[in-house]
């Protein structure tokens, strides 16, 4: 059995930041990730990040992954790659992990930060299981990590940031984007991202949804339809799209299986992406010693995930008695940072969700 002070589950932006923060406080940190490489979904982000210098704004996502990995290397952190945490022995406080193909390893940590991220939602329509229909993030992985394009002509479903960004990246990879559609009446993502794809000639059609997909074995086309302000299809507005690829970018769900299993109190908060753990200001869940950070805590941007990781990592170490003398400053700075990031109009949804979570937690 491996023993450590702070275990971090997940090596994406939140987990890496948590590991760095906890190690800086003086704790022994073990970072576990199921992939072959650290970085999580940062590895496939080719666009420059928003935010400010503290969160590496204007740096491309994959470069941020490299910066965080370099920072991690400077610290004494044990990294277990190709290792999937598959369960939690509640009575003993032990995590069970599958390491490689056939090894089962146990990990006992005094504190744990769960930074498992999120997974893509799907959308309900006839033939939504045809090969050629992917999560938009899946296409990003295929294109930007493995250098393979999914097809020739794409329909993007969802005009949030992921839909807009992946559309732009498809164009950069030489793939035609037939249109971006969204059932909502307005564009959900940042308007600067929308304008970027518009000036490449890609139409954005709000108040449209997918009526059905079709194809013999693989996707060959789709029918889209206009919806009214109650999201009901308007007969006679159907349009056929000649496409071989459809990307679904209709939001993410937090990956919280481990938190459920550990007995953390959970609440269903739509604004935060679904079932999320109840947590305090330090990102500690209702199970003492189990912290959460990033998309597993609530669906938001990678910038805030990094700050949350910092908060969780700092507190996990501090509550065990580790302090490099900067705990109070660092904690205060990070909490202020999160407030700043969420203080504008695009932070309203997340702020409302957090408020609701706090209300329902009582």
């Amino acid at each position, binding site marked *: 059995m491996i023993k450590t002070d702070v275990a971090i589950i997940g090596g994406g932006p939140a987990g890496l930041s948590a590991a760095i923060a906890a190690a800086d406080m003086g704790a022994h940190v073990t970072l576990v990730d199921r992939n072959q490489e650290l970085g999580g979904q940062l590895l496939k982000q080719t*666009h*420059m*990040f*928003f*935010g*400010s*210098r503290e969160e590496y*704004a*204007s*740096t*491309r996502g994959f470069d941020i992954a490299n910066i965080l990995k370099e920072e991690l290397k400077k610290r004494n952190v044990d990294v277990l790659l190709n290792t999937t945490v598959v369960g939690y022995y509640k009575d003993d406080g032990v995590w069970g992990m599958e390491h490689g193909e056939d090894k089962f390893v146990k990990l006992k940590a005094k504190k744990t930060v769960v930074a498992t991220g999120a997974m893509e939602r799907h959308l309900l329509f006839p033939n939504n299981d045809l090969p050629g229909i992917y999560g938009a993030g899946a296409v990003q992985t295929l294109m930007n990590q493995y250098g393979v394009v999914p097809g020739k002509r794409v329909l993007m479903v969802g*005009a949030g940031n992921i839909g807009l960004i992946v559309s732009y990246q498809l*164009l*950069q990879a030489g793939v035609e984007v037939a249109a971006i559609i969204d059932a909502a*009446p*307005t*564009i959900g993502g*940042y*308007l*600067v*991202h*929308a*304008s*970027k*794809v*518009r*000036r*490449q*000639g*890609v*139409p*954005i059609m*709000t108040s449209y949804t997918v009526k059905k997909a079709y194809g013999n074995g693989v996707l060959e086309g789709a029918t889209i339809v206009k919806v009214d302000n109650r999201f009901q299809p308007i007969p006679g507005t159907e349009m056929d799209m000649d496409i071989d690829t459809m990307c679904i970018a209709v939001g993410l769900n937090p990956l919280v299986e481990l938190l459920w299993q550990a007995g953390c109190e959970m609440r269903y908060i739509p604004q935060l992406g679904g079932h999320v753990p109840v947590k305090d200001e330090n990102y500690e869940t209702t199970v003492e010693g189990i912290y959460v950070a990033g998309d597993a805590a609530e669906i938001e941007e990678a*910038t805030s995930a990094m700050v949350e990781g910092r908060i969780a990592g700092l507190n996990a170490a501090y509550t065990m008695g580790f302090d490099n003398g900067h705990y109070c400053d660092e904690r205060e700075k990070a909490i202020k940072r999160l407030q*700043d*990031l*969420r*203080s*504008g*109009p*695009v*932070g309203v949804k997340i702020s409302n969700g957090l408020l609701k979570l706090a209300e329902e937690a009582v």
Partner: protein
Amino acid sequence: MISEKLLREGVADESDLKEVIPPDWALEKGPVAVAECFQEIPCNPCSTYCNRGAIVFENINDRPIIDYEKCNGCTLCVSKCPGLAIFIIDKNFSEDEATVMLPYEFLPLPKKGDVVTTLDRYGRPVGKGKVIRVQNTRYNDKTPLISVTVPKDMAMVVRNIRVEV
């Protein structure tokens, strides 16, 4: 107030643009930046990278309001804008031509002297322009800046190019 059109289609309309078009006196004095960033989002690199203090933020969600007394169109903010929303306009390139400098993250890159198709905010062709400068240094970090000539009255219309192959 963001226009319905921008919110629904992703293209700024005249009411949006009115807020960011530099005043005539600023355009007269030389190249200046135009920040087509109409939404309050948590992002401030344009302010961080400006050497002249021409874009000042009090809150990270502020919109970039350019102080044209200070902006000299130096281009430092353009490739650092994660939204690729900043353009440099030089109204005085020649008797009847202006130049638009725009970020361009596509292949193939045009070369200086090439004639390219100029596009508007919808990606529609609106004319031809000559590439007078391609800025692609380490600082640009794979967001090359292309400066292209346009008729003076198209300086606030042209926002993209297409390189014909």
